[in-house]
């Protein structure tokens, strides 16, 4: 008996729902577990106390960690649209992330725009930028593309660092003082910012999932598998790769904007190769070609960076680089990728056995 409607939906999605509930409750749980009771006036009680606790001590810090993970997860998912779903190796993804930060930064700080208007303009800028970069770099393939995208990213990195524009970009000091509207301030109202980041993350996750499951997404996967064959079926592969690149670029730019608001500023380092390596590491650790993989990867890499930094201080960047190399060597398909491949093969074997049993043939089961 096939269940239909809501029960089926529930049955299929319960793990996601559990995770979602946990994520929504996280600030309050963190507040109860790690908040600093001394920092909250005793007269505040009940729900109000839990809320206030969440804004104190380590609870606030860990909310910040999770916010950063949400932002990085979106960034990593956007990269995976290219690498994992379309098979395009871009080494310039930091360019979009940095653009997000710098565009809202310039508009909010120097033009005095509101955060919302700045993000609106950013959407347009990111669209144009990714269209142009895509139109140029997608003319070449494979390692050429990797090289060309890296060059484009370095172009923006050099400009951000150049002393010529110090009065706007702050050159190598970065652009500081990018404030979101006061009621969303990440310093005063971290829990609110947490929910902003959560909603942003969920929206982006659903959007990305819809894209990869759309007719367009199917063509992207076909291009990854065998681009020449996809073209022989009648698909203009350039257009689909461009769609993937634009979607990835806009998503990364939005993540970059939120990152700038959370950190109240940007530095040229968001445009550097290190940022691209971070996102590459997240995608590969989690598993390219899945959406949950990069999310998991973002969480792991961010935590790893935090712990390495605490344990080894300055040297952590070097250790992170070495860890990255080890991960690529020993986990080429990532965590989710490896698990999926296993369970998938398993399912295929059982499906075949079931078919044979149903057909009533007396085949010996493959052992």
């Amino acid at each position: 008996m096939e269940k239909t409607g809501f029960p089926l939906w529930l049955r299929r999605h319960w793990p996601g729902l559990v995770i979602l509930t946990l994520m929504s409750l996280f600030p309050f749980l963190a507040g109860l577990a790690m908040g600093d009771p001394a920092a909250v006036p005793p007269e505040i009680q009940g729900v109000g106390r839990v809320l206030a606790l969440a804004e104190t001590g380590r609870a606030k810090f860990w909310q910040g960690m999770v916010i950063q993970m949400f932002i990085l997860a979106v960034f990593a998912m956007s990269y995976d649209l290219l690498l994992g779903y379309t098979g395009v190796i871009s080494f310039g993804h930091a360019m979009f992330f940095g653009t997000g930060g710098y565009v809202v930064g310039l508009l909010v700080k120097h033009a005095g725009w509101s955060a919302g208007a700045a993000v609106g303009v950013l959407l347009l800028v990111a669209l144009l930028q990714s269209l142009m970069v895509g139109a140029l770099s997608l003319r070449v393939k494979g390692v050429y593309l990797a090289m060309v995208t890296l060059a484009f990213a370095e172009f923006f990195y050099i400009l951000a660092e150049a002393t010529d524009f110090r009065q706007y970009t702050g050159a190598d000091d970065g652009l500081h003082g990018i404030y979101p509207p006061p009621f969303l301030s990440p310093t005063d109202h971290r829990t609110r910012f947490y929910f902003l980041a959560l909603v942003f993350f969920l929206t982006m996750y659903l959007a990305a999932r819809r894209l990869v499951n759309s007719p367009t997404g199917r063509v992207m996967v076909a291009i990854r598998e065998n681009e020449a064959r996809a073209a022989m079926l009648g698909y203009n592969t350039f257009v689909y790769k461009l769609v993937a690149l634009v979607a990835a670029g806009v998503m990364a730019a939005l993540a970059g904007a939120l990152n700038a608001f959370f950190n109240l500023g940007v530095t040229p380092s968001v445009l550097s190769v290190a940022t691209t390596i971070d996102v590459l590491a997240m995608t590969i650790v989690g598993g390219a070609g899945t959406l949950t993989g990069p999310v998991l990867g973002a969480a792991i890499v961010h935590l790893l960076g935090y712990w390495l930094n605490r344990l080894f201080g300055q040297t952590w960047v070097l250790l992170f680089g070495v860890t990255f190399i080890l991960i690529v060597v020993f986990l080429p398909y990532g965590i989710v990728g490896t698990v999926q491949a296993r369970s998938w093969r398993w399912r295929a074997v059982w499906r075949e056995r079931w078919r044979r049993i149903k057909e009533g043939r007396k085949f010996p089961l493959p052992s």
Partner: protein
Amino acid sequence: MEPRIVLETRNLRKEFNGLVAVADVSLQVREGELHAIIGPNGAGKTTLFNLISGVLPPTAGKVLLRGRDITGLPPHQIARRGIGRSFQITNLFPNLTVLESVRLAAQARGRRSLYFWAHYRRYREYEERALAIIHQVGLAGREHIPARALPHGDQRKLEIALLLATGPDVLLLDEPTAGMAAGEIPLLTDLIRRLREEGGRTILLVEHKMDVVMNLSDRITVMHQGRILAEGTPAEISADERVQRAYLGEL
């Protein structure tokens, strides 16, 4: 009444570093016919297919589809104009299942491939069409197996299914029986025959297996060293002395 010419090449020529692979081939394929191209290995048959389907640009000459010049168009545009092609060497999406692959091919025919906001399941027509074609080529029951896990013969069938799902009116079949077990070949020839009778499609076929060719074709062109050696009905060709010498053998 003279049947219409669907596909035509005019003095088509291809050189690779000075080596002439296809030398001034002028070919006319009539609507609804099954036109076979035979010839020894290296005669330029596959190169000819590559030129027609846009995989390679010709050095000189023209390709016309229903009188319109399609020379030098990129492969995807040629495919969209109704020329579908199968490959001699298996050329599939290794990690996609049979159903996913065929659905992609069916979707290629529609105009909804850039609808990135909708779930692909919403367009049932592609899936239904894919399932029908999977059934037609004899792959029913294997919808959820990825292409790389299929036995060779089934991969050939999937190749044909991909081709059919794009709904072309001109089919270029490059050695569809290559590497198939002898027992499976009749199924495939049946399929090709049905395709032609049902859909009124035009088929251009490269094949080595002479009995398949003699059985199916309306017209045969013999190529040798990049040139057309002879053309005619199966009876004419098997009687032609030059063909005997160059290809069929003198034993």
